[in-house]
Protein backbone atom coordinates (compact mmCIF):
# COMPACT_ATOMS: atom_id res chain seq x y z
CA UNK A 1 0.00 0.00 0.00
CA UNK A 2 1.20 3.47 -0.89
CA UNK A 3 0.59 6.56 1.19
CA UNK A 4 -1.90 8.89 -0.57
CA UNK A 5 -2.38 12.65 -0.44
CA UNK A 6 -4.75 15.25 -1.85
CA UNK A 7 -2.91 17.83 -3.93
CA UNK A 8 -5.80 19.91 -5.27
CA UNK A 9 -9.44 20.75 -4.63
CA UNK A 10 -12.23 22.42 -6.57
CA UNK A 11 -15.87 23.19 -5.92
CA UNK A 12 -18.82 25.15 -7.23
CA UNK A 13 -21.23 27.09 -5.08
CA UNK A 14 -24.17 24.91 -4.12
CA UNK A 15 -27.11 26.71 -5.67
CA UNK A 16 -29.95 26.59 -8.15
CA UNK A 17 -27.72 26.69 -11.22
CA UNK A 18 -30.39 27.20 -13.86
CA UNK A 19 -27.85 28.06 -16.55
CA UNK A 20 -25.59 25.08 -15.98
CA UNK A 21 -26.03 21.45 -16.90
CA UNK A 22 -24.62 18.53 -14.96
CA UNK A 23 -21.55 18.30 -17.18
CA UNK A 24 -20.78 22.02 -16.84
CA UNK A 25 -21.00 21.83 -13.05
CA UNK A 26 -18.67 18.84 -12.94
CA UNK A 27 -16.24 20.57 -15.27
CA UNK A 28 -16.23 23.74 -13.16
CA UNK A 29 -15.14 21.74 -10.09
CA UNK A 30 -12.64 19.51 -11.88
CA UNK A 31 -11.01 22.33 -13.85
CA UNK A 32 -10.77 24.42 -10.66
CA UNK A 33 -8.93 21.54 -9.00
CA UNK A 34 -6.58 21.11 -11.96
CA UNK A 35 -5.94 24.86 -11.95
CA UNK A 36 -4.65 24.50 -8.39
CA UNK A 37 -2.30 21.66 -9.21
CA UNK A 38 -2.04 19.83 -12.48
CA UNK A 39 0.20 16.78 -12.53
CA UNK A 40 0.09 16.82 -16.34
CA UNK A 41 -1.36 13.34 -16.45
CA UNK A 42 -4.58 11.87 -15.06
CA UNK A 43 -4.90 8.09 -14.89
CA UNK A 44 -8.51 7.77 -13.74
CA UNK A 45 -11.65 9.73 -12.95
CA UNK A 46 -14.26 8.53 -10.45
CA UNK A 47 -17.55 10.44 -10.46
CA UNK A 48 -19.81 10.23 -7.43
CA UNK A 49 -23.45 10.75 -8.34
CA UNK A 50 -26.76 9.39 -7.11
CA UNK A 51 -29.76 10.36 -9.24
CA UNK A 52 -28.58 11.81 -12.53
CA UNK A 53 -30.62 9.27 -14.50
CA UNK A 54 -33.84 10.06 -12.66
CA UNK A 55 -33.49 13.79 -12.27
CA UNK A 56 -31.05 15.10 -14.87
CA UNK A 57 -31.82 12.57 -17.61
CA UNK A 58 -28.23 11.44 -17.94
CA UNK A 59 -26.25 8.38 -16.98
CA UNK A 60 -22.82 7.18 -18.11
CA UNK A 61 -21.20 10.05 -16.29
CA UNK A 62 -17.68 8.63 -16.22
CA UNK A 63 -17.12 8.83 -19.95
CA UNK A 64 -19.29 11.91 -20.37
CA UNK A 65 -17.41 14.04 -17.89
CA UNK A 66 -13.96 12.68 -18.74
CA UNK A 67 -14.52 13.69 -22.35
CA UNK A 68 -16.01 17.06 -21.40
CA UNK A 69 -12.99 18.08 -19.30
CA UNK A 70 -10.45 17.03 -21.91
CA UNK A 71 -9.63 13.61 -20.53
CA UNK A 72 -11.03 11.50 -23.36
CA UNK A 73 -9.45 8.05 -23.22
CA UNK A 74 -8.92 7.97 -19.46
CA UNK A 75 -10.41 5.27 -17.22
CA UNK A 76 -13.63 6.77 -15.85
CA UNK A 77 -16.72 5.42 -14.07
CA UNK A 78 -19.66 6.66 -12.05
CA UNK A 79 -19.83 5.55 -8.43
CA UNK A 80 -23.22 5.23 -6.74
CA UNK A 81 -23.97 4.67 -3.08
CA UNK A 82 -27.01 6.91 -2.60
CA UNK A 83 -26.09 10.07 -0.64
CA UNK A 84 -22.75 8.42 0.12
CA UNK A 85 -21.73 8.38 -3.56
CA UNK A 86 -19.28 11.29 -3.30
CA UNK A 87 -17.08 9.88 -0.56
CA UNK A 88 -17.35 6.44 -2.16
CA UNK A 89 -15.78 7.94 -5.30
CA UNK A 90 -12.98 9.38 -3.15
CA UNK A 91 -12.55 5.99 -1.53
CA UNK A 92 -12.17 4.27 -4.94
CA UNK A 93 -9.72 6.93 -6.05
CA UNK A 94 -7.76 6.41 -2.87
CA UNK A 95 -7.75 2.64 -3.38
CA UNK A 96 -6.50 2.99 -6.96
CA UNK A 97 -3.57 5.17 -5.89
CA UNK A 98 -2.81 3.29 -2.68
CA UNK A 99 -2.87 -0.02 -4.51
CA UNK A 100 -0.47 1.23 -7.16
CA UNK A 101 -2.87 0.93 -10.10
CA UNK A 102 -2.87 4.69 -10.71
CA UNK A 103 -0.66 7.62 -9.79
CA UNK A 104 -2.98 10.54 -10.47
CA UNK A 105 -6.71 10.25 -9.90
CA UNK A 106 -9.55 12.75 -9.86
CA UNK A 107 -12.43 11.95 -7.54
CA UNK A 108 -15.39 14.19 -8.22
CA UNK A 109 -18.99 14.40 -7.13
CA UNK A 110 -21.80 16.10 -9.02
CA UNK A 111 -25.55 16.40 -8.69
CA UNK A 112 -27.97 18.44 -10.78
CA UNK A 113 -31.25 18.44 -8.89
CA UNK A 114 -33.18 21.51 -9.97
CA UNK A 115 -34.11 20.25 -13.44
CA UNK A 116 -36.93 18.21 -11.88
CA UNK A 117 -39.92 19.28 -9.79
CA UNK A 118 -40.21 18.69 -6.06
CA UNK A 119 -42.24 15.48 -6.24
CA UNK A 120 -39.87 13.96 -8.79
CA UNK A 121 -36.83 14.80 -6.66
CA UNK A 122 -38.53 13.47 -3.51
CA UNK A 123 -39.29 10.22 -5.34
CA UNK A 124 -35.75 9.99 -6.72
CA UNK A 125 -34.18 10.51 -3.30
CA UNK A 126 -36.42 7.76 -1.93
CA UNK A 127 -34.57 5.34 -4.22
CA UNK A 128 -31.92 5.27 -1.48
CA UNK A 129 -34.38 3.21 0.56
CA UNK A 130 -35.77 -0.30 -0.02
CA UNK A 131 -37.93 -0.05 -3.14
CA UNK A 132 -40.10 -3.10 -2.57
CA UNK A 133 -40.69 -2.62 1.15
CA UNK A 134 -40.18 1.04 2.10
CA UNK A 135 -40.76 3.43 -0.78
CA UNK A 136 -43.56 1.36 -2.31
CA UNK A 137 -45.46 2.00 0.92
CA UNK A 138 -45.36 5.74 0.24
CA UNK A 139 -42.41 6.64 2.41
CA UNK A 140 -40.32 9.63 1.49
CA UNK A 141 -36.65 9.64 2.41
CA UNK A 142 -37.39 12.37 4.96
CA UNK A 143 -40.02 10.19 6.62
CA UNK A 144 -37.56 7.34 7.07
CA UNK A 145 -35.30 9.70 8.98
CA UNK A 146 -38.37 10.93 10.84
CA UNK A 147 -39.06 7.37 12.02
CA UNK A 148 -35.56 7.36 13.49
CA UNK A 149 -36.01 10.76 15.09
CA UNK A 150 -39.40 9.97 16.64
CA UNK A 151 -38.12 6.78 18.20
CA UNK A 152 -34.95 8.51 19.39
CA UNK A 153 -36.98 11.22 21.13
CA UNK A 154 -39.16 8.57 22.74
CA UNK A 155 -36.39 6.24 23.82
CA UNK A 156 -34.03 8.85 25.24
CA UNK A 157 -36.49 11.48 26.46
CA UNK A 158 -35.19 14.09 24.01
CA UNK A 159 -37.31 17.02 22.80
CA UNK A 160 -37.41 18.36 19.26
CA UNK A 161 -35.94 21.67 20.46
CA UNK A 162 -32.87 19.79 21.70
CA UNK A 163 -31.81 19.30 18.07
CA UNK A 164 -31.96 23.04 17.25
CA UNK A 165 -28.27 23.62 17.99
CA UNK A 166 -27.18 21.52 15.03
CA UNK A 167 -29.12 23.67 12.56
CA UNK A 168 -28.11 26.92 14.28
CA UNK A 169 -24.42 25.94 14.17
CA UNK A 170 -24.51 24.80 10.55
CA UNK A 171 -26.14 27.99 9.32
CA UNK A 172 -23.82 30.18 11.39
CA UNK A 173 -20.86 28.50 9.69
CA UNK A 174 -22.48 28.72 6.26
CA UNK A 175 -22.34 32.52 6.51
CA UNK A 176 -18.55 32.36 6.23
CA UNK A 177 -18.56 29.97 3.26
CA UNK A 178 -18.91 31.67 -0.15
CA UNK A 179 -19.93 28.30 -1.66
CA UNK A 180 -22.82 27.74 0.75
CA UNK A 181 -26.39 27.69 -0.56
CA UNK A 182 -27.97 29.23 2.54
CA UNK A 183 -25.47 31.58 4.21
CA UNK A 184 -28.10 32.94 6.58
CA UNK A 185 -28.50 32.64 10.34
CA UNK A 186 -31.20 30.40 11.74
CA UNK A 187 -32.49 30.93 15.27
CA UNK A 188 -33.79 28.33 17.69
CA UNK A 189 -37.15 30.15 17.53
CA UNK A 190 -37.33 29.82 13.75
CA UNK A 191 -36.31 26.17 14.08
CA UNK A 192 -39.20 25.53 16.45
CA UNK A 193 -41.74 27.10 14.11
CA UNK A 194 -40.57 25.78 10.74
CA UNK A 195 -42.96 24.03 8.37
CA UNK A 196 -43.38 20.31 8.98
CA UNK A 197 -42.10 17.97 6.23
CA UNK A 198 -42.49 14.55 7.88
CA UNK A 199 -43.33 14.86 11.55
CA UNK A 200 -41.16 15.36 13.67
CA UNK A 201 -38.73 16.53 10.95
CA UNK A 202 -39.40 20.08 9.85
CA UNK A 203 -37.83 22.25 7.17
CA UNK A 204 -35.00 23.43 9.42
CA UNK A 205 -34.09 19.91 10.50
CA UNK A 206 -33.50 19.17 6.82
CA UNK A 207 -30.72 19.96 4.41
CA UNK A 208 -31.72 21.71 1.18
CA UNK A 209 -31.36 20.12 -2.24
CA UNK A 210 -29.30 22.01 -4.78
CA UNK A 211 -26.95 21.76 -7.72
CA UNK A 212 -23.26 21.42 -7.14
CA UNK A 213 -19.98 19.69 -7.87
CA UNK A 214 -16.71 19.20 -6.05
CA UNK A 215 -13.45 17.49 -6.94
CA UNK A 216 -10.10 16.44 -5.48
CA UNK A 217 -6.87 15.28 -7.11
CA UNK A 218 -5.11 12.37 -5.41
CA UNK A 219 -1.56 11.12 -5.83
CA UNK A 220 1.09 9.20 -3.91
CA UNK A 221 2.31 11.26 -0.95
CA UNK A 222 5.91 10.85 -2.09
CA UNK A 223 5.10 12.76 -5.27
CA UNK A 224 2.71 15.29 -3.71
CA UNK A 225 5.23 18.01 -2.96
CA UNK A 226 6.10 18.34 -6.63
CA UNK A 227 2.65 19.81 -7.15
CA UNK A 228 1.71 21.64 -3.97
CA UNK A 229 3.26 23.11 -0.86
CA UNK A 230 0.30 21.99 1.19
CA UNK A 231 -0.53 18.36 0.53
CA UNK A 232 -3.13 16.84 2.81
CA UNK A 233 -2.55 13.20 3.60
CA UNK A 234 -5.32 10.59 3.67
CA UNK A 235 -4.76 8.89 7.03
CA UNK A 236 -7.71 6.54 6.61
CA UNK A 237 -10.49 5.67 4.19
CA UNK A 238 -13.16 3.15 5.12
CA UNK A 239 -16.61 2.06 3.96
CA UNK A 240 -19.05 -0.11 5.90
CA UNK A 241 -22.60 -1.18 5.16
CA UNK A 242 -25.83 -2.05 6.98
CA UNK A 243 -29.27 -3.17 5.82
CA UNK A 244 -30.83 -0.69 3.40
CA UNK A 245 -34.23 -0.93 5.11
CA UNK A 246 -34.55 0.51 8.58
CA UNK A 247 -36.94 -2.30 9.54
CA UNK A 248 -34.20 -4.90 8.98
CA UNK A 249 -32.03 -3.53 11.81
CA UNK A 250 -32.20 -4.94 15.33
CA UNK A 251 -31.35 -1.58 16.85
CA UNK A 252 -32.14 1.31 14.52
CA UNK A 253 -30.94 3.76 17.17
CA UNK A 254 -27.33 2.67 16.64
CA UNK A 255 -25.85 3.49 13.24
CA UNK A 256 -23.95 0.24 12.95
CA UNK A 257 -22.30 1.04 9.62
CA UNK A 258 -21.13 4.40 10.98
CA UNK A 259 -19.65 2.60 13.95
CA UNK A 260 -17.94 -0.06 11.82
CA UNK A 261 -16.67 2.45 9.29
CA UNK A 262 -15.25 4.82 11.91
CA UNK A 263 -13.67 2.04 13.93
CA UNK A 264 -11.84 0.85 10.81
CA UNK A 265 -10.77 4.42 10.13
CA UNK A 266 -9.52 5.02 13.69
CA UNK A 267 -7.63 1.77 13.53
CA UNK A 268 -6.02 2.59 10.15
CA UNK A 269 -5.09 6.09 11.30
CA UNK A 270 -4.01 4.81 14.72
CA UNK A 271 -5.92 7.55 16.51
CA UNK A 272 -8.86 7.96 18.90
CA UNK A 273 -11.78 10.41 18.74
CA UNK A 274 -9.85 12.74 21.03
CA UNK A 275 -7.26 13.30 18.28
CA UNK A 276 -9.84 14.66 15.82
CA UNK A 277 -9.72 18.46 15.50
CA UNK A 278 -12.88 18.85 13.39
CA UNK A 279 -15.62 16.56 12.12
CA UNK A 280 -17.71 17.02 9.00
CA UNK A 281 -20.85 15.05 9.84
CA UNK A 282 -23.54 14.01 7.38
CA UNK A 283 -26.14 16.36 8.84
CA UNK A 284 -28.76 15.75 6.15
CA UNK A 285 -31.18 15.82 9.08
CA UNK A 286 -30.43 16.92 12.64
CA UNK A 287 -31.09 13.39 13.92
CA UNK A 288 -28.27 12.08 11.72
CA UNK A 289 -25.76 14.47 13.32
CA UNK A 290 -26.76 13.20 16.78
CA UNK A 291 -26.58 9.53 15.79
CA UNK A 292 -23.20 10.01 14.11
CA UNK A 293 -21.63 11.78 17.08
CA UNK A 294 -22.70 8.79 19.16
CA UNK A 295 -21.53 6.16 16.67
CA UNK A 296 -18.15 7.87 16.34
CA UNK A 297 -17.49 8.02 20.06
CA UNK A 298 -18.05 11.73 20.76
CA UNK A 299 -21.20 11.16 22.83
CA UNK A 300 -22.80 8.32 24.74
CA UNK A 301 -25.84 6.56 23.30
CA UNK A 302 -28.86 8.82 23.49
CA UNK A 303 -26.80 11.88 24.41
CA UNK A 304 -25.80 13.24 21.00
CA UNK A 305 -28.02 16.31 21.30
CA UNK A 306 -26.11 17.41 24.39
CA UNK A 307 -23.36 18.43 21.98
CA UNK A 308 -25.73 20.67 20.00
CA UNK A 309 -24.33 23.91 21.44
CA UNK A 310 -21.58 26.33 20.46
CA UNK A 311 -19.14 25.32 23.21
CA UNK A 312 -19.12 21.78 21.87
CA UNK A 313 -19.56 21.89 18.08
CA UNK A 314 -18.86 25.55 17.24
CA UNK A 315 -15.71 26.61 15.38
CA UNK A 316 -13.97 27.18 18.73
CA UNK A 317 -15.74 24.31 20.46
CA UNK A 318 -14.46 20.98 21.68
CA UNK A 319 -15.25 19.16 18.41
CA UNK A 320 -16.18 21.61 15.61
CA UNK A 321 -18.84 20.17 13.31
CA UNK A 322 -20.19 21.32 9.91
CA UNK A 323 -17.47 23.95 9.88
CA UNK A 324 -18.34 25.27 6.39
CA UNK A 325 -22.09 24.95 6.88
CA UNK A 326 -22.54 21.22 6.61
CA UNK A 327 -25.25 19.66 4.50
CA UNK A 328 -27.73 21.90 6.28
CA UNK A 329 -26.19 25.26 5.41
CA UNK A 330 -23.83 24.59 2.50
CA UNK A 331 -26.51 22.46 0.85
CA UNK A 332 -26.80 18.79 -0.09
CA UNK A 333 -26.36 18.05 -3.80
CA UNK A 334 -26.61 14.41 -2.80
CA UNK A 335 -23.99 12.60 -4.90
CA UNK A 336 -21.54 15.49 -4.59
CA UNK A 337 -21.85 16.00 -0.85
CA UNK A 338 -19.18 13.53 0.21
CA UNK A 339 -16.61 15.27 -1.99
CA UNK A 340 -17.62 18.69 -0.62
CA UNK A 341 -16.91 17.38 2.87
CA UNK A 342 -13.40 16.30 1.83
CA UNK A 343 -12.76 19.59 0.02
CA UNK A 344 -13.81 21.52 3.13
CA UNK A 345 -11.56 19.44 5.36
CA UNK A 346 -8.67 20.24 3.02
CA UNK A 347 -9.51 23.95 3.23
CA UNK A 348 -9.43 23.73 7.01
CA UNK A 349 -6.23 21.67 7.20
CA UNK A 350 -4.44 24.01 4.79
CA UNK A 351 -5.53 26.98 6.89
CA UNK A 352 -7.64 28.39 4.04
CA UNK A 353 -11.06 28.39 5.71
CA UNK A 354 -11.16 32.17 6.27
CA UNK A 355 -13.42 33.33 9.09
CA UNK A 356 -14.42 29.71 9.70
CA UNK A 357 -10.86 28.56 10.31
CA UNK A 358 -10.55 26.02 13.12
CA UNK A 359 -7.40 27.07 14.98
CA UNK A 360 -4.35 24.80 14.94
CA UNK A 361 -6.17 21.93 13.30
CA UNK A 362 -4.06 19.01 12.14
CA UNK A 363 -6.49 16.09 11.82
CA UNK A 364 -9.99 16.23 10.35
CA UNK A 365 -12.63 13.58 9.80
CA UNK A 366 -15.53 13.44 7.34
CA UNK A 367 -18.36 10.97 7.33
CA UNK A 368 -20.70 10.58 4.38
CA UNK A 369 -23.86 8.50 4.75
CA UNK A 370 -25.88 6.75 2.08
CA UNK A 371 -29.55 6.14 2.81
CA UNK A 372 -30.62 5.98 6.43
CA UNK A 373 -27.20 4.61 7.37
CA UNK A 374 -26.78 1.68 4.96
CA UNK A 375 -23.51 2.92 3.44
CA UNK A 376 -21.15 4.94 5.59
CA UNK A 377 -17.85 6.28 4.29
CA UNK A 378 -15.31 7.72 6.73
CA UNK A 379 -12.18 9.63 5.80
CA UNK A 380 -9.54 10.97 8.15
CA UNK A 381 -7.17 13.56 6.73
CA UNK A 382 -3.96 15.03 8.12
CA UNK A 383 -2.07 18.24 7.41
CA UNK A 384 1.51 17.49 6.45
CA UNK A 385 2.39 20.76 4.70
Amino acid at each position, binding site marked *: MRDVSIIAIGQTKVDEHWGKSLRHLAADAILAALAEANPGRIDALYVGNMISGEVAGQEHLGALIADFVGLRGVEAVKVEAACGSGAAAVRLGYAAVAGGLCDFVIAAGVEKMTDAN*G*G*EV*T*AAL*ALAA*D*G*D*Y*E*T*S*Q*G*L*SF*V*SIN*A*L*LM*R*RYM*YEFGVKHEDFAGFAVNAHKNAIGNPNAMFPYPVTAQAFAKA*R*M*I*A*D*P*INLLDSSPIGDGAAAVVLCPTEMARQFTEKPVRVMASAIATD*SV*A*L*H*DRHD*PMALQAAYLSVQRAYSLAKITPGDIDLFETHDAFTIMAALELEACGFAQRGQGTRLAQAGEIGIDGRIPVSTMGGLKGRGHPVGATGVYQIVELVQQLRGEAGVNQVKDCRIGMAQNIGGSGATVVTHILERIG
Partner: protein
Amino acid sequence: MRIPRHWRLQDQRYRMVGEVCDNCGEKLFPPRDICPECSKPACTPYTFNGRGEVYSYSTIYQAPEGFEEFVPYTVALVKLDEGPMITAQLTDVEAAEVRIGMPVEMVTRRMLEEGEDGLIIYGYKFRPALAATA
Protein backbone atom coordinates in the same frame (compact mmCIF):
# COMPACT_ATOMS: atom_id res chain seq x y z
CA MET B 1 -43.48 0.37 -10.52
CA ARG B 2 -44.08 -2.00 -13.41
CA ILE B 3 -46.69 -4.76 -13.35
CA PRO B 4 -44.29 -7.68 -12.71
CA ARG B 5 -42.78 -5.88 -9.73
CA HIS B 6 -46.19 -5.65 -8.09
CA TRP B 7 -47.23 -9.14 -9.17
CA ARG B 8 -44.12 -10.73 -7.66
CA LEU B 9 -44.93 -9.22 -4.28
CA GLN B 10 -48.52 -10.47 -4.06
CA ASP B 11 -47.86 -13.06 -1.33
CA GLN B 12 -46.19 -10.42 0.80
CA ARG B 13 -48.65 -7.63 0.04
CA TYR B 14 -51.86 -9.61 0.58
CA ARG B 15 -50.95 -12.38 3.01
CA MET B 16 -47.71 -11.32 4.69
CA VAL B 17 -45.82 -14.42 3.68
CA GLY B 18 -42.27 -14.30 4.93
CA GLU B 19 -39.84 -17.04 5.81
CA VAL B 20 -38.56 -18.98 8.76
CA CYS B 21 -34.91 -19.99 9.02
CA ASP B 22 -34.58 -23.78 9.07
CA ASN B 23 -31.35 -23.45 11.01
CA CYS B 24 -31.97 -20.94 13.82
CA GLY B 25 -35.75 -20.52 13.71
CA GLU B 26 -35.65 -16.75 13.10
CA LYS B 27 -38.85 -15.46 11.45
CA LEU B 28 -38.10 -13.19 8.50
CA PHE B 29 -40.16 -10.53 6.79
CA PRO B 30 -39.58 -9.56 4.05
CA PRO B 31 -38.33 -12.93 2.75
CA ARG B 32 -34.63 -12.78 1.94
CA ASP B 33 -33.19 -16.24 1.19
CA ILE B 34 -30.20 -15.98 3.53
CA CYS B 35 -30.92 -15.60 7.24
CA PRO B 36 -29.23 -12.41 8.54
CA GLU B 37 -28.85 -14.00 11.97
CA CYS B 38 -26.95 -17.19 11.07
CA SER B 39 -26.18 -16.71 7.35
CA LYS B 40 -27.76 -20.08 6.50
CA PRO B 41 -30.41 -20.47 3.78
CA ALA B 42 -33.91 -19.49 4.88
CA CYS B 43 -36.47 -20.68 2.38
CA THR B 44 -39.43 -22.16 4.27
CA PRO B 45 -42.46 -19.89 3.84
CA TYR B 46 -44.06 -18.57 7.02
CA THR B 47 -47.29 -16.57 7.16
CA PHE B 48 -47.31 -13.83 9.77
CA ASN B 49 -50.41 -13.22 11.86
CA GLY B 50 -50.46 -9.52 10.91
CA ARG B 51 -50.46 -8.18 14.45
CA GLY B 52 -47.89 -6.05 16.17
CA GLU B 53 -47.25 -2.68 17.77
CA VAL B 54 -46.04 0.71 16.61
CA TYR B 55 -42.26 1.08 17.07
CA SER B 56 -42.12 4.55 15.49
CA TYR B 57 -44.24 6.72 13.20
CA SER B 58 -44.23 9.85 11.08
CA THR B 59 -46.92 11.90 9.40
CA ILE B 60 -45.90 12.92 5.89
CA TYR B 61 -46.76 16.40 4.64
CA GLN B 62 -44.49 16.43 1.58
CA ALA B 63 -45.05 13.23 -0.37
CA PRO B 64 -43.13 11.51 -3.13
CA GLU B 65 -44.58 11.60 -6.63
CA GLY B 66 -47.73 9.48 -6.82
CA PHE B 67 -48.68 9.84 -3.16
CA GLU B 68 -49.45 13.58 -3.13
CA GLU B 69 -53.23 13.05 -3.01
CA PHE B 70 -53.00 11.21 0.32
CA VAL B 71 -51.21 13.99 2.23
CA PRO B 72 -51.13 14.07 5.18
CA TYR B 73 -50.72 10.35 5.83
CA THR B 74 -48.97 8.47 8.59
CA VAL B 75 -46.33 5.79 8.12
CA ALA B 76 -44.90 3.54 10.79
CA LEU B 77 -42.39 0.93 11.74
CA VAL B 78 -44.48 -1.89 13.16
CA LYS B 79 -42.89 -4.54 15.35
CA LEU B 80 -44.71 -7.78 14.51
CA ASP B 81 -45.69 -10.27 17.20
CA GLU B 82 -43.29 -12.81 15.68
CA GLY B 83 -40.29 -10.50 15.93
CA PRO B 84 -39.42 -8.66 12.72
CA MET B 85 -40.31 -5.07 11.90
CA ILE B 86 -42.23 -3.93 8.86
CA THR B 87 -42.67 -0.53 7.25
CA ALA B 88 -46.25 0.41 6.38
CA GLN B 89 -48.87 3.12 6.39
CA LEU B 90 -51.31 3.43 9.25
CA THR B 91 -55.00 3.73 8.45
CA ASP B 92 -58.34 4.26 10.20
CA VAL B 93 -56.65 6.47 12.79
CA GLU B 94 -56.05 10.18 13.30
CA ALA B 95 -52.37 11.14 13.25
CA ALA B 96 -52.72 12.75 16.69
CA GLU B 97 -53.96 9.49 18.19
CA VAL B 98 -50.97 7.40 17.14
CA ARG B 99 -48.63 6.37 19.95
CA ILE B 100 -45.48 4.29 20.16
CA GLY B 101 -46.48 0.90 21.57
CA MET B 102 -49.99 1.09 20.16
CA PRO B 103 -51.30 -2.39 19.13
CA VAL B 104 -52.07 -2.55 15.40
CA GLU B 105 -53.23 -5.14 12.88
CA MET B 106 -52.78 -5.60 9.17
CA VAL B 107 -55.56 -4.80 6.73
CA THR B 108 -55.63 -4.86 2.92
CA ARG B 109 -56.11 -1.43 1.42
CA ARG B 110 -55.68 0.52 -1.77
CA MET B 111 -52.12 1.87 -1.87
CA LEU B 112 -51.90 3.77 -5.11
CA GLU B 113 -53.63 4.44 -8.41
CA GLU B 114 -51.37 4.92 -11.37
CA GLY B 115 -53.57 7.34 -13.25
CA GLU B 116 -57.00 6.82 -14.80
CA ASP B 117 -55.92 3.95 -17.05
CA GLY B 118 -53.19 2.59 -14.83
CA LEU B 119 -52.92 -0.03 -12.15
CA ILE B 120 -54.70 0.14 -8.82
CA ILE B 121 -52.23 -1.19 -6.30
CA TYR B 122 -53.42 -2.94 -3.15
CA GLY B 123 -51.29 -3.89 -0.20
CA TYR B 124 -51.01 -3.95 3.57
CA LYS B 125 -51.64 -1.09 5.93
CA PHE B 126 -52.05 -1.28 9.69
CA ARG B 127 -54.97 -0.02 11.78
CA PRO B 128 -55.44 0.13 15.55
CA ALA B 129 -56.14 -3.43 16.72
CA LEU B 130 -59.86 -4.03 17.23
CA ALA B 131 -60.78 -5.16 20.74
CA ALA B 132 -62.12 -8.51 19.52
CA THR B 133 -58.82 -9.48 17.94
CA ALA B 134 -56.42 -7.72 20.30
